[in-house]
């Protein structure tokens, strides 16, 4: 099992969710986050006072999937979240040791 964590532009969330649903992903966890990468921040100006805003708002998705879905999931996120401009985000993939469905107590792949 794999845990896919994707940082994307907030306005791309709906497109990514639709693309994932279309390939059979059952659940996603979404968090509003802030951060910076190569895009860096931006400058704001209020009555002559300049503030450099280092952290930009992004959305983080977490998706737990069986290993055989990994390639299509990565492809779906990439295609849906890409604008081609700096700041499109990143995808991280991790091994997932265990999953438990709290309601039934099922574990492992059955709980995905």
């Amino acid at each position, binding site marked *: 099992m794999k845990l896919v964590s994707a940082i994307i532009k907030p306005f791309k969330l709906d497109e990514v969710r639709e693309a994932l649903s279309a390939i059979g992903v059952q659940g996603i966890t979404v968090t509003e986050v802030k951060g910076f990468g190569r895009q860096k921040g931006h400058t*704001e*100006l*209020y*009555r*002559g*006072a300049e*503030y450099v*805003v280092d952290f930009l708002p992004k959305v983080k998705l977490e998706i737990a999937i069986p290993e055989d879905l990994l390639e299509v999931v990565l492809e779906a996120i990439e295609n849906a979240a890409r604008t081609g401009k700096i700041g499109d985000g990143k995808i991280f993939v991790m091994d997932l040791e265990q999953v438990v469905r709290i309601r039934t107590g099922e574990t492992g792949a059955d709980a995905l």
Partner: protein
Amino acid sequence: MKTINRSAWLGAGLAAMPALALADGAPTLVDASTISAGDTAWMLTATALVLFMTIPGLALFYGGMVRRKNVLSTLMQSFAICALITVLWTVVGYSLAFTPGNPFIGGFDRVLLDGLVYLKDDAKLTTHPLAGTIPESVFMMFQMTFAIITPALITGAFAERMKFSAMLVFMTVWSLAVYVPVAHWVWAPGGWMADHGVLDFAGGTVVHINAGVAGLVAALVLGKRVGYGREAMAPHNLVLTLIGASMLWVGWFGFNAGSAVAADGRAGMAMMITQIATGAAALAWMFAEWIAKGKPSVLGIASGAVAGLVAITPAAGFVDAKGALAIGLISGVVCYWGATGLKHMLGYDDSLDAFGVHGVGGIVGALLTGVFAVKAIGGVEASLSAQALGVAITMAYCAVVTFVILKLVDAVIGLRVDEEKEREGLDLVLHGERVE
């Protein structure tokens, strides 16, 4: 009667006019038939409009500009000042400002509003000589709303760091020691500035220069906010600020057109002049910022509108449309410089630009009133030197007395919250509440 009283009011300064010799400036008991329904209806409305400028107008204008942790404390200051000045004005403020005394301060004839009456069965009521066609109750209320907004304007200068208790004590003393005497000098029949030909139609000197200078002194005495210049202090919600600025703009028709104390041609002129100057100033600030910094900002255009409203205030009853355009354009650019260049050059932390907008705009407006006043409209001859004298004396008096009051309050209760509390935010520390 009506005309005579009117000139005494506007005249702010025509000592020689027979009007002033007529009454000694004391309110009198008259027949209800002398009251004009039209004038009274308009002044009831204008009074409500001016109160609306402070709550919620100014409260929101300022509240949007502070950081999220201080928004409630900022709103609270304007609201509490509204309640506080209502009581003070009733107990003694109105009497000291608007009843006869000497050229420097009024008397005690209206303490607790003693003698201000409406007698239904006799069909009699009192009127004030500055407004002979409306009940004294309405005149007193109209003036009260000006006494409320002036200290509320000062709070922008020391936002995000002053103790609430110290703020209440300071405002109580300041209102009686600075606002009330200056209002008497400029507006009361026999006030010494009025006698020297200083023109201030709706309160450019009394309200805006006074509040701006007091704000500057407060910013200097309290010192900068913790982290000023190093940490981000961006406004937390400019939507609130734009709503507040819009309420100020609309409410200002009560302030300026209401200062005609009648529903007449002069009120109409004042309303038109106010709108023209405000539009011009909003554009002037916006373009100045656009040229200097590359973007036309929402905070910029809103600030420019307020700067124009401030600057046209002393001139609203004296200038024509061309004068209004000029005053608007000049004040928009000069106040942009006041809130950006001047402030950063001198390094004080006038947090929300009480001085940069109200002080600078008030001075520009007071001086330009002397330049652009048209005798055919105001019925009076304006003088730049008289205007400059009014500005200089008000600034000096206000600065000195404000400084002394602040030092006294600092010695007794302390002006600022300590650093840790300031970092945590005044909402939680002072009021035990927060927005989210």
